[in-house]
């Protein structure tokens, strides 16, 4: 059965800390891995990773994929209270439906 596992499930840090969120997967017909940030309602897209070893970067956030070891990490440097959210990892499967399988998410709380 295809699955996506995120760790930790919950994390509390102080402003300025650097955090690393983990996502491992076991999915047949892997197509790409996506990271989303969910603050209150709709998840918003952060990154899509398709190739191993190529870092995607957006401001203080960065992510990389390892297709050999089947995992991805999301790094946030110099965290701010506005980074508090649930971070979701999802894997897109190939095939006609192209469905996303989501992990349970990591709840990040950044304290001032």
């Amino acid at each position: 059965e295809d699955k996506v596992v995120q760790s930790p499930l919950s994390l509390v840090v102080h402003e300025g800390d650097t955090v690393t969120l983990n996502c491992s997967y076991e999915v047949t017909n892997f197509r790409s891995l996506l990271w989303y940030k969910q603050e209150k309602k709709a998840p918003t897209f952060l990154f899509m990773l398709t190739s191993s070893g190529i870092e995607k970067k957006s401001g203080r956030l960065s992510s990389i994929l390892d297709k050999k070891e089947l995992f991805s990490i999301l790094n946030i440097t110099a965290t701010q209270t506005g980074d508090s959210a649930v971070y979701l990892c999802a894997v897109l499967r190939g095939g006609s439906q192209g469905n996303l399988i989501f992990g349970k998410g990591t709840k990040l709380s950044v304290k001032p």
Partner: protein
Amino acid sequence: SQTIHQWPATLVQPVGSPLSLECTVEGTSNPNLYWYRQAAGRGLQLLFYSVGIGQISSEVPQNLSASRPQDRQFILSSKKLLLSDSGFYLCAWRGGDRGRIRRNEKLFFGSGTQLSVL
């Protein structure tokens, strides 16, 4: 630009009552449409997806059903709600698998419906 509308935002229903959640997408044609449910501590669970009008696939057996009466309209329904149907429901879309595949891999979400069944 493409937009997705989902309503209502919040819904409180008694057990045994019917349900209808609606989702519409604008600015695109022939999208793939999805209904997800997010229960506390359980992540996003795919309930239904549709690749075209009248085409519905169910991922998990349950008390819910979905319909796609128009190209950009996706409806989630139930004839009789159960307590276990409570949760946060998200509609999502992405481009259909035609043309450049890699442009169509991002999933865009509606603002969600918080359903409480009492």
